[in-house]
């Protein structure tokens, strides 16, 4: 298996071992023996050998990527990963060089993406020349079940790592399917490269198949966009894209590649405009805070009695958490993380205010660092009269939404490092005690919600969302599993806010806030599969827990959008546990309480078996109705994830009525922000 494209498909010897284990534990049918033999060997020779001896049960399928079995009639074939996928992932990487011959526009663009270390590309087939070239140069490439799902996976990969990723779909319908998740990525300031083309410039304005004007459709959700129309500028516009993706505040970049560009061939790179290497077309230089601004900031922090630092996404993107924690320890200021990923300020740190919402209002100084998506006064639990400093990598957004006493243009890491070096040592015992007391109150309140939910669960033989969330919490953080290990993410309304209260982030990007700022329903599972692929590969902050299982909490409403991506997770052998809160409805059904004729629109069939559907996709399925059953299902699922890279969908049967505060108070609440439970900013 080549290193660049190592998708952690289990290697042949490992597969042999796994198959041997399964032989020990479960008897296998003749068909299973046949198919596993084909899967294990993955060679035409193996299949031919089997055909020669067994004779009737298989034949060579003839896929260029490998040999797949044909099952006999009369026996239902099992879900399996075709050997063609394994062989495809094992095939060699190409290094596009002009010295070896002419390159087309797609290959030239892929070459640039490779040199820019594009972390991954997710797609549903379409935009063929581009995605094939990107896969061929060895950029980790993944095919999903929908363009929207692929886009959410790309977003999830980036949220878990901070890396630049790409998402691609075919021009027109595939691109249109991506829009919701492009917008979600834009809201989260994800450095996402959107690629979507098939059509041609010559096909414009003449009703050509799938031809739409795509650039205007991303106008409000992108940082930069361009439809390339001059073939020899393909390298130049690649530069434009990566300058935008890798500098300032991250965002979405959208490039269209019509056929005239992707298929034009160039034997001489001198024919390309601006054909030079990346150290000549962009810079890694970052803005340092001015001496005067830095001194003002230090003076303000030193004079404050109850300062708090909001460590936004920029602290994560610039990997500035260690100097930030050092500065906080030295000067005893409170810290709280924000952004579409959590954990760059660990929840278990003594100065973390992520659960100290009642203390936030008494902070007398708020320092926003790398807060890319600014709340308005009142959206964060800070006193509007508290002084405010904002540190931001570009000046344009300073003063936006939140009135400032000091605005500083600086790279986040540069600012934080100076803080760590220059702030004097100080103790703030009363502030620390206030934070701790508020945190304890939050925990006590959460436990009270759990106690109430447990009673409701016992009364109804279903699982209340607080019980579901608490059981997951206890399993992941209070048992035998390293509490820093498991990456989680959550979506949904009724269940999401319960999950958000109980999920923890004790290391950078341990928790993904799928709904962040945009509130999209449904990308949750796909997004977390993308994050899981980052964990599988140990990219960036996920390195320590490379290969660990991940867990996604979503709703029965949400799973409808991305359930088929379970196939993608299994295909790439990423161990995902998906907990589906099944309350038979859209969580907002109480909105129809006063309009009876509208109620039917909010409800689903009851007791749907998402677990059975997952089994049909090759995953494990679990159906639970009590806390005890959920506990055992989590244990089994995690073990299967660790030992077999298995995916599991746990169908948590609940009730619609738990969304009603009148019937089952207190009903779900939005989490206070910033901190645990935050998703709006």
């Amino acid at each position, binding site marked *: 298996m080549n290193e660049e494209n190592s998708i952690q498909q289990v290697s042949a010897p490992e597969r042999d071992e796994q198959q041997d284990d399964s032989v020990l534990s479960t008897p296998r049918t003749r068909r299973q023996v046949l198919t596993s033999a084909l899967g294990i060997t993955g060679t035409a020779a193996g299949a031919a050998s089997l055909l020669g001896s067994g004779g009737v049960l298989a034949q060579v399928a003839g896929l260029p990527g490998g040999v797949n079995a044909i099952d006999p009639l009369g026996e239902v074939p099992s879900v399996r990963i075709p050997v063609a996928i394994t062989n495809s992932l094992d095939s060699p990487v190409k290094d596009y060089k002009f010295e070896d011959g002419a390159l087309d526009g797609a290959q030239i663009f892929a070459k640039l993406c490779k040199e820019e270390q594009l972390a991954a590309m997710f797609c549903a087939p379409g935009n063929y020349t581009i995605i094939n070239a990107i896969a061929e140069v060895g950029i980790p490439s993944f095919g999903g079940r929908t363009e929207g799902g692929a886009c959410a996976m790309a977003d999830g990969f980036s949220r878990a790592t901070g890396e630049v990723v790409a998402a691609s779909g075919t021009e027109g319908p595939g691109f249109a399917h991506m829009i919701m998740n492009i917008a979600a990525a834009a809201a989260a300031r994800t450095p996402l490269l959107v690629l979507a083309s098939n059509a041609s410039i010559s096909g414009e304005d003449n009703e050509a198949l799938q031809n739409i004007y795509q650039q205007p459709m991303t106008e409000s959700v992108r940082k930069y966009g361009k439809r390339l129309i001059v073939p020899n500028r393909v390298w130049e516009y690649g530069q434009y894209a990566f300058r935008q993706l890798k500098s300032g505040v991250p965002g979405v970049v959208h490039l269209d590649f019509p056929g005239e560009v992707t298929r034009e061939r160039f034997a001489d790179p001198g024919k390309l405009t601006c054909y030079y290497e990346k150290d000549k077309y962009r810079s890694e230089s970052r803005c340092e805070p001015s001496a005067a601004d830095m001194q003002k900031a230090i003076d303000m922090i030193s004079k404050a009695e109850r300062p708090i630092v909001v460590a936004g996404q920029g602290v994560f993107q610039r990997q500035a958490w260690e100097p930030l924690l050092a500065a906080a320890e030295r000067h005893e200021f409170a810290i709280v993380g924000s952004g579409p990923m959590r954990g760059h300020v660990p929840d278990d740190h003594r100065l973390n205010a992520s659960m100290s919402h009642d203390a936030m209002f008494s902070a007398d100084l708020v320092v926003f660092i790398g807060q890319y998506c600014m709340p308005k006064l009142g959206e964060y639990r800070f006193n509007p009269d508290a002084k405010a400093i904002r540190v931001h990598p570009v000046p344009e957004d300073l003063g936006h939404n939140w009135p400032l006493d000091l605005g500083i243009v600086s790279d986040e890491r540069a600012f934080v490092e100076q803080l760590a070096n220059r702030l004097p040592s100080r103790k703030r015992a009363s502030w620390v005690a206030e934070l701790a007391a508020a945190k304890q109150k939050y925990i006590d309140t959460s436990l009270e919600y759990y106690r109430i939910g447990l009673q409701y669960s016992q009364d109804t033989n279903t699982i209340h969302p607080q019980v579901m969330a608490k059981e997951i919490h206890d399993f992941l953080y209070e048992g035998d599993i390293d509490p820093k290990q498991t990456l989680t993410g959550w979506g949904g309304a009724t269940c999401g806010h319960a999950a958000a209260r109980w999920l923890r982030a004790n290391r950078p990007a341990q928790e993904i806030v799928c709904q962040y700022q945009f509130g999209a329903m449904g990308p949750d599972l796909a997004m977390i599969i993308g994050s899981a692929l980052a964990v599988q590969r140990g990219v960036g902050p996920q390195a320590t827990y490379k290969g660990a299982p991940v867990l996604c909490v979503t709703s029965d409403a949400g799973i409808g959008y991305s359930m088929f991506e379970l196939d993608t997770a299994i295909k790439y052998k990423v161990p995902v546990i998906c907990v589906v809160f099944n309350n038979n409805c859209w969580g907002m059904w109480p*909105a129809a309480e006063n309009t009876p004729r509208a109620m039917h629109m909010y409800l689903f069939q009851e007791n749907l078996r998402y677990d059975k559907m997952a089994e049909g996709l090759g995953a494990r399925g679990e159906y639970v109705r009590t806390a005890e059953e959920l506990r055992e299902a989590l244990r089994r699922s995690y073990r299967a994830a660790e030992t077999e890279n298995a995916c599991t969908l746990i169908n948590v049967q609940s009730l619609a009525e738990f969304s009603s505060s009148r019937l089952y108070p*207190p009903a779900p609440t939005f989490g206070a922000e910033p901190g645990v439970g935050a998703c709006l900013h």
Partner: protein
Amino acid sequence: MSAKRRFAIGLGSVVALAGWSVAGSADDAVLPLDRALTAEEARALKNPLPMQSDSISKGRTFYMQYACGTCHGDDGRALVVFAGPVTDLTNPEVWVNGTSEGEVFRSIRDGVSGMPAFGKEIEAERIWHLVNFIRSLWPADALAANDNR
């Protein structure tokens, strides 16, 4: 009822609500505080805190502190309805769960329809300040008409 007595009742409610286990009442009748108030019980409640500028100001602060504006909007008009239809706090004519002081208190403490119950997160005294602030958002004639019922 005297202002002093109303305040005493309010304090009783604060103590009771904190534990969600004992009772307090506007009329010395026992109000069950381990469950949601009925509409009748809510209507019988009176705000122990006079609707004066100090209380309204505190209520505005709590409105921000508890991020009520996330659903109801900064100005209470609930023009953004991502969490489902949300009550326009500035127009009592459209309210469906009661507009008396006690009913507003009940809506915040015990929740209504899709609105969560905040009784475990916000102390009763602060809820009464919120009641005063929210009613201050009403048109003057609506407030007068409501209080004269």
